């Protein structure tokens, strides 16, 4: 089951402007086409981009 953009936003407590729904659909589809299939990108690489820094910020100081 796939939710519409309107349902998806309403589930988050957000009421989209009715005039925006068509534009949101077009823009979202545009983003999906930019994403393509990510072929050649090491998505499951062990060295992840989002890091946890033990000890908090600026531990190096």
């Amino acid at each position, binding site marked *: 089951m796939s939710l519409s953009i309107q349902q998806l936003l309403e589930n988050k407590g957000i009421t989209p*402007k009715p005039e925006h729904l068509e*534009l*949101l659909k077009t823009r979202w589809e545009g983003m999906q086409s930019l994403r393509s299939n990510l072929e050649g*990108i*090491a998505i499951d690489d062990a*060295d*992840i981009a989002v890091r946890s820094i033990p000890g908090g910020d600026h531990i190096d100081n």
Partner: protein
Amino acid sequence: MMQTSPYVVFLEVITLTTDLHLKSVEELAPLLASKTLSPVELTKAILDFAEESQPKINSYMAFYREEALARAKEVEQEILQGHYKGMYHGIPMALKDNLYFKDKITTMSSKIHKDFVSDYDATVVEKLRDAGVIFTGKLSMHEYAWGITNNNPHYGPVCNPWDLDKIPGGSSGGSGAAVAAGASVASLGTDTAGSIRIPSSACGIVGLKPTHGRVSKYGCYPLAWSLDHIGPMTKTVKDAAGLLEIIAGFDHRDPTCIDIPIDNYEKQITGNIKDLVIGINEEYFFKNVDADVEKAVRASIQSLVDQGAKVEVVRIPSLQYAEWAELVTSLSEAAAIHHSDLQKRPQDFGDDIRLLFELGELPSAVDYLQAQQVRRQIKQEFTEIFNEVDVLITPTLPVVASTIGDDFAELNGQKVDLIDNIIRFTGPSNLTGLPALSVPCGFKGNLPIGLQIIGPAFKEGRILNVGYAVEQANPQRTRKPNIFANI
């Protein structure tokens, strides 16, 4: 008996023969240091021009006339007593209205924050104050920095000083227009997908996005935490170098700030680019570019080759995913910041940014994390490229400034989406965090064209030196806008 100011004789000569508001910091600083020009007269001249130009370009959100003049008198005494601090001592300047000033309203050019008062100064404000800068006011921006037109629904559009019907670019459009016109001697902007470099290119000034972590963002209202930067917007490359030297440096209050010594950027500007290796990426940075923009940028590159630089063509395959990664990251982070207001008071946002916040609710956590992995790969490829070349050169924008109110840009006779195209060449440096400088390199008709120089992390001195070589080789570098001729 009335006391005679030591400046009186010299001032009459200067004000009668020159336009102070058109001068750069590198021209004004020696006059201030040698006590030939009083900071009070300079501040008054800039404020007078800023107020006179406001109905034309609408670059200011607020004027601080009385306190600026009071502060200028204090600064005048400091200089007269022999305590000249350096290049920016006595320079009047207004800043983008997302940088906090203690006990002052900071609006982000929004309706929701129209009465927001910070109880502390942003780190960059504190540093500029200590350097002797005189604040003349706050400058307009695209609402919450989330757009590139500066066509603000609450405070009116900012107009491009080169053509009042055109956008100044954004989101730091007030800073771009004010510096280009002369309503602020220099300024600071913030940059999440190009918001320093876009208005700098569109308004014909210099804009520097430093390395992520080089300048503290403490006291700057965020747009997207991992992509935001603060940097100089100035009339010349040397002005940008001097300004960066003041605002750079470690700050424990900004978790993204990195503790690396500050270079003497001005000293690195020699203009010598012999044996410099320039990287050119044709597939991404020279694809779908306005023919006149491309011609001007390639001509500038040729002028660098004539001065002894070499060109190497480079490939950066993962750049094909850069637009997607930039959009997912910026949209998601911005939506997270404004989520609660989007639920409770969506009608208080301008229509364009409300749409972007709604769009930012759509990517999944998986999309966001995959975008970060893409980002990491792009960073790695750029690191490898900088083992082969010293800098990359690209157009800053694929087009020149568009007409206020249009949501499209003209690209070689075709109408193309404005926002997607404007951030195409600037966005990758926000993903990588690498330093990038926009320098004027020519005109299409009356509209400025910018050239972008990207360098390795923390090599701001290098890109400033290349920018200086571009600036000096530009035969139109002395051309100035005249907003009062544009009626």
